[in-house]
């Protein structure tokens, strides 16, 4: 996986709609992207990389179960996007989708 530290894929993904040609030409209404990634602090397993502990609202919540994991690698031809997603259930039963930006090496929830 080629790493590019100069440009953050999340910076571009935070305003993904600006690059959409169909939107530029249609509506004057401002658009707000849904499901934007929110930075979060995560402690992950050193061996597997799976999230183990999530800082949520100032308190650390252990991950009870990693239900599913998948990877998204896209747009390598411009600003590469490389994310490792995990659908988890926190202790207490709260579901959450986390991903590690593999370019930035930062965690987000979505």
């Amino acid at each position, binding site marked *: 996986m080629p790493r590019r530290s100069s440009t953050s894929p999340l910076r571009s993904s935070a305003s*993904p709609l600006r690059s959409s040609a169909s939107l530029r030409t249609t*509506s004057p209404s401002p*658009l707000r992207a*849904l*499901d934007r*990634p929110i930075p979060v602090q995560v402690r992950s397993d050193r061996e597997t990389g799976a999230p183990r502990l999530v800082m949520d609202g100032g308190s650390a919540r252990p991950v*009870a179960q990693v239900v599913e994991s998948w990877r998204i690698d*896209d747009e390598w031809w411009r600003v590469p996007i490389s994310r490792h997603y995990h659908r988890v259930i926190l202790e207490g039963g709260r579901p959450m989708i986390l991903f590690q930006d593999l370019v930035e090496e930062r965690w987000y929830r979505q």
Partner: protein
Amino acid sequence: MKNGLAPLSPSPSSAPDLPESRMALCLWLPTFELRLELVRSPELDTTSVALLEPQEGAGAGRILQISERAAEAGVRPGMSVSRAVALCPSLTLLEPDPTHYDAAMAMILERLVQVSPVVQAEERGRIQVGMDGLERLFGSPERQVERVLHALMDTLPRPLVAALRAGRAPGTFGARVAAVAARPGTPVLVEEEGLASFLASRSISTLPVPDEMLERLRRLGVERLGALGALPPQELLRQFGPVGLEARALARGERIDPVRARHRPRPIRVSMDLPSPVGDREILHRTLDRLLERGLAHGDRKGRSIRGIRLGGHLEGGGSWSVPVTLREPSARVETLAYPLQGRIRLSPPPRALESLFVEFFDFGAPSLQPMLFERRDGGARVRAGSAGAFSDGEVSEALREAVRELKLKLGHSPLYRVVEVDPWSRIPERRHALMALDD
């Protein structure tokens, strides 16, 4: 993983909202599907019979399960049909009927839930029943197992109940191993203090680990769980990673995975008999769209979005075909639901023409109130980003238009938005949908 067991989860704990039970009873009916077929066609009971694997794509099928007579003739599961028939010319080949098998499993689970609230289906023919607390109702462990088996008598034909193997032990793995060790009619019961010694003498084949790991362990001379449990943990970690450590904990009886109740909402099923058998993909797609519309309009849906769908039907000349699809994001739109199902039809088409088609919604997402609030008169509430942002006549209710005008007068802007599709098939979640201000 040939043993069909769920792989080891990364963490032994789970969401505590779901009821759990430490003491487990594993009910196992080997060759479940073939036994159901023999109940349906008892005249085949004493003949050489083989059930075919569900066919994925084109090509000759393989043998999934065999009767004792077929085994005596040398037929084995996994064998090609041509080889099996060459070995046993009188072999009766049965097309799989997954719809029938799933319906039987659903019936069994429904009956078991009346005995214990914690019931977990591991695979077809293998069920874990939570036993915690049942002693106050039914008495000794032996009596508890008896009562569970007795409950199945009025759901399953007696020969099937008689063929069940039952194992009761702490944790699902212990119960599974006990069920494998049990004989029909003679359950194996393992108590907490005897679990480690019971497991030690059992084969490693029941471990929920990849087949390659089992093969490597056997090559190292590790055949029994006791031998695996005696290996140094750091060596197992080096050889197999975290799975090695978890397998060791299971083998030593140190890891106890409780039975977890699975919340299974009642599925919504709609079906259509086709006037003549249909194999044409275009017609199947159109019928699928109509069934999805009917399913989404079903009163039992109560606004819930759909996460899991099963598409299937009865095949011309007998047997059935079905394919499940689980969506990454639940949806209540026909196009979104139809797209992955059409992909499955392309990848795993029905082997013959279909006489009927059904759609079953078996897993649901949260109810979405947004479409109701912003319901447009001509259908769904979402618009594509390319369409006009402002209202057009008949699109949004007059009351909502009035509300927007009032809010703009009071606040200077409207805080009401609509969800628009931007790039709904994007792999990047934040690019799929956006909020657009409702403007009059």
